């Protein structure tokens, strides 16, 4: 496998307030993130709301400037392009390769443009084709996501949420991208529609040879679609792991907590587990010293309160975790046996 994208020491700090009479405060949304995305995989980024997963996605695609660190895009020849240092004009060619699917299908489509124009817009901006060719390409891309050709003259409000999300997917795919960042792409949809859209994403991945960064808070969805999972907490990466391993044997107490909260449809398999996440996420502007998770961790010891654990590979597995006791703790997974691969 070849690396498609790598993120090195990425940090994002928001400066809050700071007026004439107010002291400004820093809010660290992302703290020293390192991760790589392999070509062809589906990498899921999970975490509770406010953990920085959306910010990470937006920083990677440069919808927001980063404070520190670098994002590299690896071209086919093996050359690396540093996306973070490019200005608006210089990054434009790479916008064809890295695309985004948005969370809210209601607000991500311009209500004043027809479906045809919405999907054609990227092709027009990049001056890829026009006239008949443009029309054909838009129609065939829409057909692939299941929007019939006779609907292309309509406005977005004439479509259901699931159909709108399909249009959003078509807009992302019409440029023939390499990497698609799906930011909570299914969380605004009904569960039945979620399954349809997830299956569609899976099919399209094979057809187009795509790589996904799938940002989600829903571990059920992640289990279904992801090859590898990055767990984030308070702007830190606390664990990365292949999906199956993560669900079998998590290495970070936070992951265990998330898995415990996962609903299980079969009552006989729910074995006396606490179902809710305990504790509050600390305010980002007031992060705890030491391990960021120690305020909610039931295994926390003195060392956790003093010393911040680094993300490190766990011997003998493909997992990494940022916990002092990653090897010692025997954390509970969500499943005893191999995870079931079917939802809905």
């Amino acid at each position: 496998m070849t690396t498609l994208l790598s993120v090195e020491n990425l940090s994002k700090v928001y400066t809050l307030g700071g007026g004439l009479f107010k002291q400004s405060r820093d809010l660290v949304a992302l703290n020293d993130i390192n991760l790589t995305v392999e070509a062809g995989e589906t990498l899921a980024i999970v975490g509770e709301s406010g953990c920085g997963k959306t910010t990470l996605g937006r920083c990677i695609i440069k919808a927001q400037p980063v404070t520190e660190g670098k994002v590299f895009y690896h071209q086919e020849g093996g050359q690396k392009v540093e996306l973070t240092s490019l200005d608006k004009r210089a990054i434009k060619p790479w916008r064809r390769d890295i695309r985004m699917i948005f969370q809210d299908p209601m607000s991500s489509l311009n209500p004043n443009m027809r479906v045809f124009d919405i999907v054609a817009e990227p092709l027009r901006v990049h001056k890829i084709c026009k006239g008949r060719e443009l029309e054909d390409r838009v129609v065939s891309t829409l057909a692939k996501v299941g929007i019939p050709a006779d609907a292309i003259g309509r406005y977005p409000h004439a479509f259901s949420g699931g159909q709108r999300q399909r249009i959003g997917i078509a807009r992302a795919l019409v440029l023939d991208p390499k990497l698609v960042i799906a930011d909570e792409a299914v969380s605004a949809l009904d569960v039945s529609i979620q399954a349809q859209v997830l299956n569609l994403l899976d099919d399209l991945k094979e057809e187009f040879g795509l790589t996904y960064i799938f940002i989600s808070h829903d571990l059920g969805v992640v289990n279904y679609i992801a090859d590898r999972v990055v767990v984030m907490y308070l702007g830190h990466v606390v664990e990365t792991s292949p999906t199956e391993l993560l669900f079998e044997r998590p290495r970070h107490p936070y992951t265990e907590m998330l898995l415990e909260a996962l609903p299980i449809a079969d009552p006989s398999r729910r074995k006396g587990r606490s179902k809710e996440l305990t504790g509050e996420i600390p305010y980002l502007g007031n992060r705890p010293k030491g391990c960021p998770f120690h305020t909610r961790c039931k295994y926390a010891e003195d060392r956790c309160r003093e010393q911040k654990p680094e993300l490190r590979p766990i011997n003998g597995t493909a997992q990494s975790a940022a916990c002092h006791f990653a090897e010692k703790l025997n954390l509970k997974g969500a499943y005893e046996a191999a995870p079931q691969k079917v939802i809905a």
Partner: protein
Amino acid sequence: MALDTVAPGVDVAPAKLKRESQLALMWRRFKRHQLAVISLWIVVFFYLVAAIAEFLAPTDPSAYSARYTYAPPQGLHFIVATEGGGWAFQPHVNGYKTEVDPKAMRRSFVIDPEVIIPVQFFAPSKPYLLAGFIPMSVKFMGVEDPRDPFYVLGADRLGRDLLSRLIHGTRISLSIGLAGVTLSLFFGIVIGGFAGYYGGWFDSAVMRVVEFIRSMPTIPLWLGLAAALPKDWSALQTYFAITLILSLIGWTELARVVRGRFLSLRTEDFVTAAQLDGASDWRIVTRHMVPSFTSHIIAAATLAIPGMILAETALSFLGLGLQPPIVSWGTLLQEAQNIRTLATAPWLLTPGVCVVIVILALNFFGDGLRDAADPHGR
């Protein structure tokens, strides 16, 4: 990556697709709003009158006649009685006779139904230039002998024809509304757009200026500015100066509307999507953001025109806007300022009726347009 394969069962035939332009859709929605459609015709009628004022006005608006001061409206009649007791079609106006009020010893004009002055449609006249560049020698209507009195809507203090003056005043009053709004719209969109799109210190500075301008009472400000205009300026110069003064305040309201829309649209996902498409700022603003609030702009603009017309009328009425000999509805109403004139010549208030009709029509028209331009509407 092949994009040419299509899922089975999906008809790909772009030629068959039915498309309707945004304008056609807007027109269809607009037609459902009956009051707005009627108002549209009224507005069109008035602007048409303004456009061909020279053709419609029976006489020169400044032609005076000492014989017919404050002559009452003659009205236009079409039927005359023939000698045999029958009727015949003959457009005409009646002549005047003078009566003396024995108490006040005041002379006044009374319509004399005996005197019939035939009126000709498309009457030949002295050559003139329509709208300043089309040579014509035909008027919409006129009397055969130019010495005969022809005051369909009455005459003013100097015996000038009110109808002719009203028609010429329509041109000035309506065009000042359009010109003022165009100017305000331009400044409002550019300044408000920059403030809203880029935000930051420029936004704060602009908004403080807007607040400052808006916090001043408008009438004294207009009065002050209008009083500062040099008296020796030509009619055209004053006209443009007044337009500028009116839009000096007009732009602030539009700038606020535009800025607010930009601010809220800037964070919309579809704008982010356009940025991620690699679209330029210009394209994002013109193709993605502005179309989302054309309805707002249209409504704000049409609703600002009556404001401009009223402002001009008010200023001219107070004697500080346009000055005679420029004829506008405001300067015409200036004639009707004192109670004595009103008592003896109430027809001098007709410009006021025009103001009311046009302003109501523009408001309804603006409402209809706003509803029609909104794709979320029914």
